[in-house]
């Protein structure tokens, strides 16, 4: 299984029936592919839709029905559309149960940096700051390391997305939970040892006696 599939499959396990879920661009988008058939989850697209469905069949796309990147999507029966004030009222107001975002860095306190590399990448924060500040549960889906450097750091060196810590980080190597300013190793990826995770992780991790392997 490739790294992205590991991450997306594991994140999908965090979703509960009835949840309103917002998926960011990149790996988070893949999570929708791994939601069990019986689970009724509402996906929000922050440009104004609840009930996003898969990419439409050839010739069935509508130019006025897109995701936040402007790509054609479909809407499931029971979908609803609304303006951006409502969309971010839902996000900031805690009505989104789970948001899944990509990350550049997450630090030991659970602080996320994912919107800016000063002097290099200044695209704007879009909806990320509101999502991290407002969603009930924030999950970061990202590679554990980039170019051999841990993305789970002692302290973020990049500008923060929010002062509010994330709840969970799911990587291709581990699941790490954040609470009360600490990071706990919750699971390891298949074939990855606790020692390997610790070796590649810059942040201090609390290691419980038993760390199960992801069941994906």
């Amino acid at each position, binding site marked *: 299984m490739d790294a992205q599939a590991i991450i997306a499959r594991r994140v999908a396990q965090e979703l509960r029936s009835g949840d309103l879920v917002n998926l960011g661009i990149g790996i988070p988008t893949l999570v929708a592919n791994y939601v069990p058939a019986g689970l009724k989850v509402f996906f929000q*697209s*922050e*440009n*104004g*839709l609840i009930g996003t469905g898969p990419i439409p069949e050839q010739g069935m796309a*509508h*130019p*006025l*029905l*897109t995701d*936040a*990147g*402007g790509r054609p999507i479909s*809407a499931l029966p029971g979908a609803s*559309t*609304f*303006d*951006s*004030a409502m*969309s*971010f009222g839902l*996000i*900031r107001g805690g009505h989104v149960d789970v948001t899944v975002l990509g990350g550049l860095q997450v630090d030991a306190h659970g602080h996320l940096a994912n919107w*800016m590399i000063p002097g290099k*990448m*200044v*695209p*704007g*924060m*879009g*909806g*990320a*700051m*509101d999502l991290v*500040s*407002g969603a009930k549960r924030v999950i970061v889906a990202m590679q554990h390391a980039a170019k051999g450097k841990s993305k789970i750091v002692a302290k973020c060196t990049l*500008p*923060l*997305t*929010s*002062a*509010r810590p994330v709840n969970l980080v799911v990587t291709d190597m581990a699941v790490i939970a954040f609470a009360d300013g600490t990071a706990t190793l919750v699971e390891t990826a298949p074939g990855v040892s606790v020692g390997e995770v610790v070796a590649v992780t810059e942040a201090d991790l609390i290691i419980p006696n038993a760390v199960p392997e992801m069941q994906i």
Partner: protein
Amino acid sequence: MRAVSVEEAVAMIPHGASIMVGGFMGVGTPERLLDEVVRQNKTDLEVISNDAAVPGKGVGKLFDATLVSRLTATHIGLNPKAQQQMLAKQVAIDLVPQGTFVERIRAGGCGLGGVLTPTGVGTLVAEGKRQIEVAGTTFLLETALRAKFALVHAFLADYLGNLTYALTARNFNPIMAMAADTVIVTAEHIVPVGVIAPDHVVTPAPLVDYLITNG
């Protein structure tokens, strides 16, 4: 509301005007108005729009023609021209979190001085802003945002100016339709009064100043 041609409407916009433009990545953007803004070569525009779209589409056309002097937006990452013009300091860019962006415009349209949001507290976004504590929680004071013109794209408009929007093309349009001195609207379809049920109207007719005639 007055029905006018797109040429007549855009002629009212002076160089250097502040304009809000509806749409999200070019979806729900009044393309005909932007094409005419480019044709009439309106320069030094202060644009308020969620994003810079992509070259050749939506607000992206204004960057193609280098007509923008200032942009207030939430994301410009998919338009390399906007990024280049920002880095070359040809365009001043204010980046605002998307929920804050829409609340500031809503405040401008609804007569509020501003709102208190938790978004941005403890980040670069907080710099230079007043922080206000309510019941032990710290919020940023984000102030109202208005423009001289709002360029709005609707799905249906009736002869009075009542508007509806389609699917994800609604986005910022109805909010901006409240927050500008002059509201100019294009619609995919112009229909007789009564075609839109009262409960389905999103923007009531009195908010619309000019409706661009079709075909």
